[in-house]
């Protein structure tokens, strides 16, 4: 294996987390930084001609190529797993910018109690309130400590929205149930698609507190603190699963890449498939760099003084397991940490509503809409609900295209092909919309990741195996929220409503969200956590792990702002303290 010249920092993964770290290190220090991205090169100008539903939204052109590597799944530890042979429940991206290119740019924050969930829940409801077999943890950090970094993220992205709580002062029209913000959103809320306006008015009439969905697909022109300017969204509707045609959507290629490309100390290598993190064993215990297969198919070793893993939940976890760093988590004994706390945000189409009037739903963006969080708040008394935690309801005008949206019909229509079906589907095509729900997913001891004993990738390395299923807490939450969504749909004037039929087993064929988390979790002790709240590996102080893999449990909120806030905090700690005195930060 050829050894390349050593660099100061190597970053595995060129998505939001990896490129933000590259930008911070590259622009604020003179360190030599190499980013390794396994997918293709991308730039924001590529998206001027990508508005093709078939290739992008149906054939999923921007997603990871599963022919070389996927994950396997089983519902419980007593069975063998099968590979997920095609995309379904989640859509990890590949290429520069990663999933941050094709996301919908929905940017709520996590609730303050999420970060101290174990201690807050037991303090309020008693030690037995959490379900049997849970693995809920405190993160070792509080919302107040993270808030300044959340604000930096809002400024980076130019987030559009209406604040509901500024330093404890509640503001009507914003989300009064969320954690306090130190400042208002940098840009005003987005425009409102018709369906979302119906939802807003109906929710309000029922006593809920709707607010404009926070959006990193911005409402008007904005220049961020790095001097990057973007125009406002034009509501073309080609948003999630696409890169943004006009660059209004915050993407790593428009916010981070232009800065990185100007820095001579940062280089970005695409087509680089990292296989192992190499390290000095105990007692020295330090990462030496990474080995990878380059774009020409040659395996090379890239030595580095600091290694960052920023390659999404699955690959962060898999690389630790393949490299033999840390002890794999064993649910039978509770020993080990790598692979524990696998969670997936609980999202459901709670009520699909059919209207008499047209909705013009080709117009929209991935995050233009309204939400209400009356069941997504830390102060709610859950003792009578039958489940812990909660989530938010939403109506977003994603921008619908006909291949994916055609043929969603009221349950009263039985035909699935032929003239009766076609006529109903043509009639309802622009008269259908969904009230969605996004809820928290608690961590359980038996939801985890390890290496699959059978299936391999094209290089011969074992695939990552997920052991994952829903439990009663999620099922009861779904049962509780579905009638609320139906009630709102009725108040919107829907003529027919399909209620969500209920959560059964984890279904890998229904798109849930790309918010899969855990595997290399943070915490205040190496006994149960892989990294400290500075995302620094507890045993190898020159190894940092960035991304949702470090989250002990899943919030109702979408994770990108929280991921980026932690990256900022870690970058500050490295630049201000670690570079002067390399060693443990926590």
């Amino acid at each position, binding site marked *: 294996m050829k050894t390349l010249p050593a660099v100061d920092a190597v970053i595995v993964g060129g998505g939001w987390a990896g490129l933000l770290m590259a930008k911070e290190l590259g622009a604020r220090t003179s360190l030599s930084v190499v980013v390794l991205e396994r997918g293709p090169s991308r730039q924001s100008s590529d998206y*001027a*001609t990508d*508005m*093709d*539903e*078939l*290739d992008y939204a*149906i*054939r*999923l052109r921007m997603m990871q*190529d*599963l*022919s070389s*590597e*996927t994950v396997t799944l089983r519902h419980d530890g007593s069975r*063998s797993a*099968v*590979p*997920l*042979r*095609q995309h*379904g429940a989640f859509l990890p991206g590949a290429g520069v910018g990663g999933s941050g290119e094709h996301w919908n740019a929905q940017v709520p924050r996590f609730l303050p109690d999420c970060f101290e969930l174990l201690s807050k829940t037991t303090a309020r409801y008693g030690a037995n309130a959490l379900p049997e077999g849970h693995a809920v943890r405190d993160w070792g950090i509080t919302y107040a400590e993270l808030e300044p970094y959340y604000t930096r993220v809002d400024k980076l992205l130019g987030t559009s929205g209406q604040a509901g709580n500024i330093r404890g002062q509640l503001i009507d029209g914003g989300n009064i149930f969320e954690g306090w913000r130190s400042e208002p959103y940098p840009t005003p809320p987005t*425009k*409102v698609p*018709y369906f979302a*306006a119906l939802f807003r008015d109906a929710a309000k009439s029922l006593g809920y507190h709707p607010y404009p969905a926070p959006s990193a697909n911005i409402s008007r022109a904005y220049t961020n603190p790095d001097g990057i300017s973007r125009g406002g*969204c*034009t*509501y*073309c*509707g080609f948003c999630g699963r696409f890169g943004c*045609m*006009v660059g209004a959507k915050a993407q790593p290629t428009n916010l981070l890449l232009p800065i990185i490309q100007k820095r001579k100390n940062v280089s970005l290598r695409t087509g680089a498939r990292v296989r192992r993190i190499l390290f000095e064993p105990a007692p020295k215990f330090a990462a030496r760099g990474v080995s990878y297969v380059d774009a020409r198919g040659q395996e090379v070793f890239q030595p580095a003084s600091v290694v960052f893993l920023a390659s999404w939940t699955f690959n962060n976890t898999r690389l630790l397991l393949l490299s033999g760093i840390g002890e794999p988590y064993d649910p039978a004994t509770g020993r080990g940490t790598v692979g524990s706390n696998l969670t997936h945000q609980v999202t459901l189409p709670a009520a699909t509503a059919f209207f008499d009037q*047209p909705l*013009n739903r*080709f*117009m*929209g963006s991935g995050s*233009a809409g309204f939400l209400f969080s009356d069941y997504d708040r830390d102060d709610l008394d859950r003792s009578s609900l039958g489940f812990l935690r909660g989530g938010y309801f939403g109506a977003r005008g994603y921008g619908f*295209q*006909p*291949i994916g949206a*055609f*043929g969603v019909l009221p349950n009263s229509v039985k035909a*699935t*092909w*032929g*003239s009766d079906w*076609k*006529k109903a589907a*043509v009639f309802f*095509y622009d008269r259908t919309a969904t009230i969605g729900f996004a809820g928290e997913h608690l961590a359980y001891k038996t939801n985890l990741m390890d290496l699959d004993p*059978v*299936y*391999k990738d094209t290089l011969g390395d074992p695939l990552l195996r997920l052991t994952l299923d829903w439990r009663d807490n999620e099922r009861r939450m779904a049962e509780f929220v579905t009638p609320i969504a139906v009630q709102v749909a009725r108040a919107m004037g829907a003529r027919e409503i399909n209620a969500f039929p209920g959560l059964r*087993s*984890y*279904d*890998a*064929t229904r798109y849930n969200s790309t918010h899969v988390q855990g595997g290399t979790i943070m915490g205040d002790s190496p006994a149960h956590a892989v990294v400290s709240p500075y995302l620094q590996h507890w045993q190898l102080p020159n190894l940092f792990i960035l991304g949702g893999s470090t989250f002990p449990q899943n919030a109702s909120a979408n994770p990108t702002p929280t991921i980026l806030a932690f990256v900022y905090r870690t970058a500050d700690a490295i630049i201000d303290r670690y570079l002067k005195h390399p060693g443990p930060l926590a």
Partner: protein
Amino acid sequence: MPRLRSSVTLPLMRRRHFLTLSAATLGGVLVYSLDRKASLLSAQQGPVRIPLRFLTETEALIVAAAASRIFPSDDSGPGAREAGVAVFIDRQLAGSYGRDRFRYTQPPFEDAPREFGYQGRATPRQIYREGLKGLEGFHLLSPTAQDEALGKIESTLFFSLLRQNTIEGMFCDPIHGGNAGMLGWQLVGFPGPRMSNLEEIEKYYGQAFRPEPLSLRQATGAKVRPSEDEP
């Protein structure tokens, strides 16, 4: 450098198949000649022979007939035959989709419950080729007999692919060979890739806003290449 490579070095080609369609039923489908040059057919032209990339002529006729029973032309508007769905499906099967270029296809292949997704070994090409064997002579049957034949296979994987691909061929951008003349988009009021709805999004609450559709090539002025034409 020889002017022409010896035929010995070329793989033996099977007999090339064509689908013969009436141009009048194909609003404005893009047809590719053998050297892959695209030309737009107009309704004035007579019957056209469209070179097939994967299906045989008989298979294409069966696919066209089945797609037009799934998505028929009726008093609610045009259907799969007018939109050129069979041409779309042929090109998809010939391209990366048809050969499962992006699916994980390593063995072992085990049965698993539905919620684990398709676990089979067969590619869309193989599923079509096998499924079409069961529909021999289908294109010669009466519509009623065709519906009966489809009813018998409606729970098969082949039928679910055919149904899904028919919807795709009705509503894809015309660069993919389906949605000829943007008939599918007009049927449901989809305008294609519009650059901006900024002024309209809050203006048409409760009333239909139906701008004239534009294809991706029309809207961007760029010669966008569909993925099935990539090597």
